[in-house]
C-alpha cells in the first residue's frame, strides 16, 4: 500500500493520533479533579548524558510542594518539530501542559502571541541577576519577564593545540590571522586530507549564527537597535565575502556549504581540520577516551575581523516558561523557579549532561571545575556573547535571510545582491506588521 503521508509511515500517524486522543482524555479528566492533588505537566526535550537528572529533580520538587505531582513529557526530537507542536497547542489554547522548555529564540514570539504567562509578578530583576546577561536579555521582552534562563550555548572556535604549537602559533584573535595560520599549518603538514577551518554553512538556523558572528566581528548588525534591517550593508557585505573567500581560497572545503554541527564536528574530531567553529557540547566528545584528538584540542573565543570589533559568539540554549492557559499557575511558576534555581542547575551540571548552566557562579565552583576544567573559560566566552536578535519576528527574519546567505556562500549571488534581496524581502514583510 501507499503510505498515508509523504513523510510519516502510516503506523506512526496512528500512534500520533492515539497520543492525541489520550491527551484529550487526560485533559478532560483534569478539568474535573477540583481540589485534590495538582498535576503539573512539564514538556521538555530529552536530556542527553550519562545519566538523566530530571526524575530526581522533579521528585525533590514534589517533596517540597506537597499535593503537587509533576508529570514530565518528552518533546519530539528536532527544534522545528518542537516549535510546530507548541504553535499548534498554544494557539489552540490547550491547557494540557503547564510548564514548557523552549528555545531562546522563541521567547519574544510566544510572549507577543500571548501564549506565555508573564512571570514579572514573581521573578524580580534580582532573581535574574546571577544568570548570564545574554540569557536574561533573551528571556525578557517589552520590559517583562517571560521565561527563566535554564541552559546556555555559545559559539566558540576549537583549534588543534598540538599543530599550532608545532608551528609556534598562538590561538588567533582575528579571522584574517586564523586564515593565515590555517594556511601555514596546511602547507607544513602536507596532508591532503587536512582542512583549514570548518563551520556550518548549510541553509538552516546554524548558518544564521555563523553569519551573525562574522557580522558582529565586523561591527555589522542584522537588525539595528532602531529596528532597521541591515543598517551597515557594506560591512555586512565584507563579512559575507570573507566567508565565501574561505571556500574560494581552499581554507574551508566546498562542502561546508552543506555542513551542520555534526557533519563538521566529526572530521575535526577525526583530526582532519585545524580549526572548527562549533558549540561547547563538542568538547566532551573530543575529550572522550576513544577520540583521536583527545588532549590535542584547545578552545578559544571566536576571532573578530581586522578593523572590526573583537570576536563575539552567538548564544543559544533553552528557557523555561509557563503556559498562560495553565490551570495551576502558582504551582507552575514554582516549578520553573525551582528548576532554574542554583541547586537544580548545579545538579544538572554535575550529572555531566551536554548542557551548560545559565548561572555564572557555577562556572567557578571548585567542585564543578574539578570535573570540567574548561568551565571558567566558557564563563568568559558566554559573558562576552550576544543573543541573536531578540524580536518576535525572529523566525521570519531568520528563514528569510537563510536562502540569501546560502546563495552568497555558494556563489549564486554576490554578497551585495544577496543582502539587497534579503533586505527588500524583510522590509516588505516586516513593513506590513509594524
Amino acid at each position, binding site marked *: 500500500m501507499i503510505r498515508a503521508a509523504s*513523510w510519516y509511515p502510516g503506523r506512526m500517524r496512528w500512534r500520533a493520533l492515539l497520543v492525541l486522543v489520550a491527551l484529550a482524555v487526560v485533559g478532560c479528566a483534569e478539568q474535573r479533579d477540583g481540589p485534590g492533588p495538582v498535576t503539573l505537566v512539564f514538556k521538555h526535550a530529552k536530556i542527553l548524558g550519562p545519566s538523566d537528572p530530571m526524575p530526581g529533580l522533579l521528585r525533590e520538587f514534589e517533596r517540597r510542594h506537597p499535593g503537587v505531582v509533576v508529570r514530565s513529557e518528552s518533546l519530539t526530537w528536532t527544534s522545528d518539530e518542537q516549535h510546530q507542536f507548541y504553535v499548534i497547542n498554544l494557539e489552540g489554547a490547550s491547557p494540557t501542559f503547564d510548564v514548557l522548555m523552549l528555545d531562546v529564540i522563541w521567547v519574544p514570539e510566544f510572549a507577543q*502571541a500571548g501564549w506565555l504567562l508573564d512571570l514579572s509578578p514573581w521573578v524580580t530583576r534580582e532573581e535574574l541577576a546571577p544568570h548570564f546577561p545574554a540569557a536574561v536579555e533573551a528571556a525578557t521582552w517589552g520590559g517583562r519577564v517571560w521565561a527563566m534562563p535554564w541552559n546556555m550555548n555559545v559559539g566558540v572556535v576549537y583549534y588543534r593545540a598540538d599543530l599550532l604549537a608545532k608551528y609556534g602559533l598562538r590561538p588567533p584573535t582575528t579571522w584574517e590571522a586564523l586564515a593565515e595560520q590555517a594556511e601555514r599549518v596546511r602547507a607544513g603538514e602536507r596532508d591532503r586530507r587536512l582542512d583549514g577551518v570548518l563551520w556550518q554553512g548549510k541553509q538552516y538556523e546554524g548558518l544564521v549564527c555563523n553569519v551573525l558572528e562574522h557580522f558582529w566581528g565586523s561591527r555589522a548588525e542584522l537588525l539595528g537597535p532602531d529596528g532597521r534591517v541591515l543598517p551597515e550593508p557594506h560591512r555586512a557585505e565584507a563579512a559575507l565575502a570573507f566567508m565565501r573567500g574561505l571556500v574560494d581560497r581552499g581554507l574551508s572545503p*566546498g*562542502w561546508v*556549504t552543506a555542513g551542520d554541527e555534526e557533519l563538521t564536528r566529526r572530521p575535526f574530531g577525526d583530526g582532519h581540520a585545524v580549526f572548527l567553529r562549533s558549540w561547547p557540547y563538542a568538547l566532551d566528545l573530543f575529550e572522550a577516551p576513544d577520540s583521536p584528538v583527545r588532549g590535542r584540542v584547545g578552545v578559544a573565543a571566536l576571532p573578530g575581523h581586522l578593523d572590526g570589533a573583537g570576536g563575539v559568539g552567538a548564544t543559544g540554549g533553552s528557557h523555561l516558561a509557563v503556559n498562560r492557559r495553565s490551570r495551576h499557575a502558582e504551582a507552575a511558576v514554582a516549578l520553573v523557579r525551582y528548576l532554574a534555581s542554583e541547586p537544580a542547575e548545579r545538579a544538572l551540571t554535575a550529572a555531566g549532561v551536554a548542557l551548560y548552566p545559565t548561572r555564572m557562579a557555577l562556572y567557578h565552583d571548585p567542585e564543578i571545575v574539578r570535573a570540567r576544567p574548561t568551565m571558567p573559560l566558557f564563563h568568559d566566552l558566554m559573558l562576552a556573547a550576544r543573543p541573536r536578535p531578540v524580536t518576535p519576528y525572529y523566525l521570519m527574519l531568520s528563514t528569510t535571510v537563510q536562502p540569501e546567505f546560502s546563495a552568497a556562500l555558494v556563489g*549564486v*549571488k554576490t554578497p551585495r545582491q544577496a543582502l539587497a534581496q534579503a533586505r527588500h524581502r524583510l522590509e516588505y514583510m516586516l513593513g506590513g506588521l509594524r
Partner: protein
Amino acid sequence: MTARERADRRAGLAFVAPAALTLVVLALYPGLWVLWLSLQQRIPIFGIARFVGLDHYAFLAGDPRFWNAARVTLVFTGASVALELVLGLAVALALQRQRVGRRLALSLLLLAWALPSVVTAKLFEWLYHPSAGLVNVLLGGRAFNWLGDPALALPGLILADVWRTMPFVALLCYARLLTIAPEVYEAARVDGAGRLATLTSVTLPLLRSILLVALLFRTLDALRAFDLMYVLTGGGPANTTETLTVYAYRSLFQTLQLGFGAAIGVVIFGLVMAIAAGYLRALRREGLAA
C-alpha cells in the same frame, strides 16, 4: 422504480453514509477551511486577521521564490518518477529471471522501502559526505560537494528518492509478472518471438495497467515531496532544493503566516488534483477505474 428497488437504494445510502460522513469531516471541511484561510491575512502572533481576497495569489504570481519552488517540484517529480519506473521495471524483470536468492533480493528491496524516510535521509547525509561518504569513494575519491553545490543538490536528492521508492515500483511490477500465465510465454516462443519481441509485445503490454497505477501513486507522492529536502538540505543551498511543500511548511509553521501558507497549500492541492484527474482519465480508458 419498484418498492424493492427503493428499499435497496435506501439501504445502499445508509451503507455509504458513514464513509461519506468521514470524507466530509476529514477532507471536505478542512479543505474548505484552508481555502477560506488562503483568502485572509492571518498572523495570529501579531493579532492580524483580515480578509484580503486574492492578494496572496497575486503576490505568489510575481514571487520568484514561488516559481523557483514550483520548478524544483516539477523537475524533482519528473526526473525521480521517470527513473523509478524504468529502474523498477528492470529490477522486476531481473527478479523474474533470478533463480537463486530471490527471497533475499526481495527482502533487501523491501528494506529500502520500509525505512522511515527521515532515516533514509540521514543515511544519505553520510553517503553523500564529500570526504568520508561512500558515493565519492566509489567515484574514485572525487570531492563532489553533493548537498552543498547548487548544481548537484537536486540531482542528489532525486537519486536518494529513486533509491528509496524504486522498490515500490519493482514490487508492484514483480507481483503482476507472477500472475502472467506461463502459457502466454510458451505461445510466444511457439510463434518464434525472440527475447526482445517477447518483452515489447507480451510483457510490457501486460504490465501497462500496473505501470499506470505505479505512475499515479509515485507522481502524487513526489509532488508532495518534503522529508528528503527538509532533512538533507533544508531547501538549500540558495533554495535550489526548496519544493512547494517546503515553502508552505516554512510559511505556515516557521513564520506562522497562516493565510499565505494556506494559499501555497491550495496551489499544491490544485496541481495534485489536476494531475490526478489526468491519470484517472487514462486509467478509466484502461478500464481500471470506475
